[in-house]
């Protein structure tokens, strides 16, 4: 019988929200659920900027060991219910935080050692990595709108059959290194 996965420690800042109707515990619950699904055992710290409705996110890992803390920074729009502004959406959070946790998990691999920090990535690098992450989330059963990511990919790389083939390759991949993503 396989060992049960170690429980991930999750912390969320701020603990109390004033601009949006979010609960830190609800965000932590989504992260814990994702950690189990994705096999992430590192401690995770989520920092939400609730003063902006934008949706930029970044992930960084303080090392490559299994106890290195993953810090995910998210603008509040990334976790928002787009039908009910200022309200939290667990589905939106699963998609957005899931991509960041996969990025963090990738960064623990030796073949991602040379990857620039999330905030230093180019628009095309970001798009390629998002495609790669979203494809993997879709395959573990999370609701992901593939066309949304295809459109983003096309916006960044161009509207052509070759770009669509590039998208399909990244979407279907499971074991890429940073160099593969940048090809």
């Amino acid at each position: 019988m396989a060992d049960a996965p170690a429980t991930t420690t999750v912390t969320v800042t701020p603990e109390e929200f004033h601009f949006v109707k979010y609960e830190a515990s609800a965000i932590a619950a989504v992260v814990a659920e994702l950690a189990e699904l994705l096999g992430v055992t590192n401690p995770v710290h989520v920092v939400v900027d609730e003063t902006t409705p934008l949706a930029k996110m970044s992930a960084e890992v303080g090392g490559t060991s299994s106890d290195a803390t993953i810090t995910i920074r998210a603008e509040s729009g990334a976790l928002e219910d787009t039908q009910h502004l200022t309200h939290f959406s667990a589905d939106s959070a699963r998609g957005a935080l899931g991509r960041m946790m996969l990025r963090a998990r990738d960064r623990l691999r030796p073949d991602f050692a040379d990857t620039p920090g999330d905030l230093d990535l180019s628009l095309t690098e970001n798009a390629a990595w998002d495609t790669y992450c979203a494809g993997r989330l879709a395959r573990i059963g999370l609701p992901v709108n593939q066309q949304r990511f295809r459109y983003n990919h096309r916006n960044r790389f161009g509207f052509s059959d070759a770009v669509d083939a590039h998208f399909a390759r990244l979407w279907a991949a499971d074991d890429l290194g940073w160099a593969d993503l940048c090809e």
Partner: protein
Amino acid sequence: MRQFFPVQDLARDERFVQTNMAERMADARTALDPEKKSKKSRGSSNRITPERHDASDAARGLMHGIMVGEIQALEGAGRTAHDFEAGDGSGDTIPFELKLDMARQAWDEARHVEISAKLSDWMGTELGQFAENTVLFQAACSDDPVLRLAGVNRALEGLAIDVFTQMKEFGNLAGDPYLAFCEDWMLADEVTHVKMGSDWLRKVTEKDPERRAKALEFQQVVDKLFSFGGARGDSEESPIGLARRFRELAGFTDGEVDKIAEMDHDAFEERMAAVRLAQEAAGASPAPA
């Protein structure tokens, strides 16, 4: 068939969730950071361009807003064609030719709904994914048809000219073969709709300057609502630029467009002051992502 249809009775299926300006104004967050004007900061420009990190999602959100706006414009033009009896334009009547123009506009808007729904699908958006702001139809609920012309055809369809021009530019810059093409065709219709509003407003109120003044005042109220937070104007802080040339073709004077730019600037300053107050009250210190 029922006349004068209130906004709360609009027919929508379970996919759609409606909101209004009051809810939008209650959101104390802002996409802009007036204190942090570095070039790299997303807060230094709000214009929807492909260079934005969130360009695709911002364009998807705007396209959904266009789609529900087209549904309401269809409903509004249809109501105006039906709600008033044909006559000489005095009292509660409208000229028969104005009814025909409203019917033609409803037909245009129906086509725009289909185009926008297909574009939303192309961009990876599900119908109803974003909240539907019903302010457009609210402007089409006035008892006075001349106020509807001012509020809908001139103010809101004028906004549509700005939005479509912005989306067309976005499509061109991104190289999206469908977006730019579709927006260009819809833009041509919108210019016609605004022109119809400008022409009919002038004609129907020719001998009633008081009614005309009241209508133009209503137009400013609607324009101000749509300038909330500096939503469209000449500055980079505005997500949507003012399409001055197309507005001119639609019958706006330079003075009228300058007035909208001025309102946008004031609305931006008001919003920033409100945001600062809200941030102080919450004791929030933004954590940059």
